[in-house]
């Protein structure tokens, strides 16, 4: 109690002595800036006004009277952006009442829209936010109308009751080896659906209407597939219907890097899966990202492993680290978990350390690409957020130095 009282007095004293600063205004100074769009980290500062980045870099002018947060030379990156998660849709895998990424018995088809399931109180969101994930694509896993999985939503993990940032941000389709289905039929179903939606135009029924933004190039068609033959089919569909195409998985894409670059296809891969875990993935290799990047393809990283949702930040940084270990430039790898996902899912908005981007910053206690590193502070929209989680509370309760 005495400690609490002392804290209160200290807080009061601070409130009385500090220059009043506008909410969302902050100078993060003495930072080792890892700007994913720069060639290398540099020492500098970030000026935040109204929750947006007003300036960033070694030469950014120091505004007068602004509250200062000293990064003490630590690495600072933009908030991480998970390009292919289930955050907010899933929680405890075996507790099926917490799993909402599949339409299941609702039978809803391609219009299956995950925005209505998002749970801001999810432990996974709490964990991801505390570890520096600020945005994520939350994607559907399956609709009542395969090969369509449904419509994914971009979430923003600011504390509060609403994480939905952009609904219906991508139409997801999954095509590949399956016991009960031929992929030939799935490609035909996809093409028929696109044909029908194009013919129906704006008068379409709800399921057809769900494809209109895809046909209008407002949102991408997202095809989750691995085999090289399927990647070629995906590119052909995108060309025939003049669509924006995003691939997820794409283990065999290293052979088709030139084709993907030529067609401006964005590719979300997992560099940490180099095992041929399925027959479709016999070509899996850890330098996939480096090969695609070298060919000029925009890449982003997710994980096919257990960490993708439950340890989202670690999953992303592990992916980036593995890509670097296998030949990718470290800043390009950082881009693959920050600005590239932003460009894929929020194409029209500034991101990273660009002026006008939301001031989402993570201050790290070590190399941001090392899984062993952790944030010392996370700022979302210029506000430092609490990093307390249920798991950190457990760690505190059971600390071995604590007297029972």
């Amino acid at each position: 109690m005495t400690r609490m009282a002392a804290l209160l007095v200290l807080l009061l004293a601070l409130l009385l002595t500090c220059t009043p600063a506008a909410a969302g205004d902050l100078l993060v100074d003495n930072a080792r800036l890892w700007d994913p769009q720069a060639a290398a980290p540099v020492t500098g500062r970030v000026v935040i006004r109204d929750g947006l980045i007003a300036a960033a870099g070694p030469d950014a002018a120091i505004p007068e009277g602004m509250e200062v947060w000293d990064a003490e030379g630590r690495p600072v990156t933009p908030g991480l952006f998970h390009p292919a998660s289930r955050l907010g849709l899933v929680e405890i895998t075996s507790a099926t009442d917490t799993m909402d990424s599949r339409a299941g018995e609702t039978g809803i088809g391609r219009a299956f829209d995950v925005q209505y399931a998002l749970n801001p109180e999810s432990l996974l969101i709490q964990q991801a936010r505390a570890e520096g994930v600020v945005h994520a694509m939350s994607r559907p896993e399956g609709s009542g109308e395969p090969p369509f999985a449904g419509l994914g939503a971009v979430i923003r993990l600011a504390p509060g009751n609403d994480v939905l940032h952009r609904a219906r941000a991508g139409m997801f389709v999954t095509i590949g080896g399956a016991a009960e289905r031929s992929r030939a039929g799935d490609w035909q179903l996809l093409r028929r659906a696109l044909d029908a939606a194009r013919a129906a135009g704006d008068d379409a029924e709800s399921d057809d209407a769900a494809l209109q933004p895809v046909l209008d190039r407002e949102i991408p068609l997202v095809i989750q597939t691995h085999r090289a033959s399927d990647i070629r089919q995906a590119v052909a569909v995108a060309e025939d219907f003049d669509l924006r195409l995003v691939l997820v998985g794409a283990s065999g894409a290293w052979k088709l890097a030139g084709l993907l670059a030529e067609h401006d296809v964005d590719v979300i891969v997992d560099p940490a899966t180099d095992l041929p875990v399925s027959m479709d993935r016999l070509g899996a290799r850890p330098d996939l990202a480096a090969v695609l990047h070298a060919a000029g393809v925009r890449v982003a990283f997710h994980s096919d492993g257990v960490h993708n949702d439950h340890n989202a930040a670690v999953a992303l940084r592990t992916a980036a680290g593995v890509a670097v270990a296998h030949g990718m430039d470290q800043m390009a790898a950082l881009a693959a978990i920050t600005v590239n996902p932003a460009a894929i899912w929020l194409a029209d908005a500034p991101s990273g350390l660009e002026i006008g981007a939301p001031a989402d910053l993570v201050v790290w206690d070590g190399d941001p690409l090392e899984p062993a590193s952790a944030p010392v502070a996370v700022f979302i929209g210029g506000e430092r957020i609490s990093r307390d989680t249920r798991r950190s509370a457990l760690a505190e309760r059971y600390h071995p130095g604590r007297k029972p």
Partner: protein
Amino acid sequence: MDRAGRPVPAARRGFRHGLLLAAVLWLGAGWATLLAQAADAPEPPRPVLIRNATVLDPVAGRRDATDVLLENHRITAVGRGLDAPDGAGIIDGDGRWVTPGLIDIHTHLGMAGVPYIPVELETWDVNELSDPNTAQVRAEDAVDPGDPAFARALAGGVTTVQVLPGSGNLIGGRGVVLRNIPAVTVADMTFDGAARVLKMACGENPKYTWGPKGEAPVTRMGIAAELRQAFAETAAYRDRGGPVDGQAPDARLEVLAGVLAGDIPVHMHCYRAAEMDRMMTLAEEFGFRIAAFHHAAEAYKIAGRLAAHGACAVVWADVWGFKMETLDAIVENAAYTDAAGACVALHSDLPRIGERLPVEAARARAAGMRAGLDISRARALSWLTTAPAAMLGIEDRVGRLEAGLDADVVVWNGDPFSIRTRAERVFIRGLEVHALDDSGPARSDLELGHPAAEPRP
């Protein structure tokens, strides 16, 4: 030669691997030598002197600018300014780190081999689901050395693996410890003299495997009751002197009698603190010890109890939330449990984790240090070397860089705890079984010549 005097087979399949070709060329030998090494009476591999490296040992700690000499399958010296024997291969250790080969104490390599084929998942070789007690089955009867995950683990510095049956049964069967050398048969990989543990399981997996079939166990009560019954029958079998005259020994009861006699270590899949406590109590009733709890998500809640019983915790750095009994797993688990005096090893279970075990150790260590614990790099390395070696009864043969031990050695191209680092060379009993080059990990038979995997650019 190993302890039993049996020649240890070299990389029989090695000539199919480009990487091993590189290794052979580096060793200045050639096909003939490697094949000779693979023959039944091999010459020992050429001596290797690693010079001027950063040597990290779980016991001796970190030594800079240090040499390691491998001769005649063994480490023969670790120190400064060692002389190279005639004909030795020299590795420039400048900028490189050297550790003992890593031990992954919980894998299903070769049993749950990749690729995962949908129609085979019902009958894959991990769980013998014909009865909840299959103490008599052995993992080694199911292991396919062709599983590409072996070579990926090797590329991550893993030189010894324990392969275990799964956790669908209460008593799943015997594990086997393998040297991670490219081979065609399990016999060529078997780590002679290592423990052959009995894998058991508690909690959700046996419940959900058998309960829905209307068979015991349905509940955790049923799990304990079934185990008590099995050990009571075993004690009676033992007390009457084994099989009745003229009848064959009961394979199940013989194994469980080995547990009661303390000859067969029990490694038990178990997550919750309360449940681990009940299992230790049950074991104590029957006079045996549970050597290790695997996964042990809540080990940190009862670390003192584990230490008192003599049970180790074999854990992930941080895998949580995939079922209710994993909800309380925390990244501090290994560090807290170690700090409380219980032995700790890290495991992969999943091949992708096994490819990067030192990074797991680094995470677990960093979490402990953030909580104010003092954990040396050497201590974190012990979770992947000396600790699992002791659990498997091979601590005087592998797990340290010390004269007299098997030459299971990894040369890393940087700090092994960094995700940016890769294993540059891996030796098992002095034979180079992995060398980093641009062509990626060794091609398994599955991938070899397959148009989806070739050609490498």
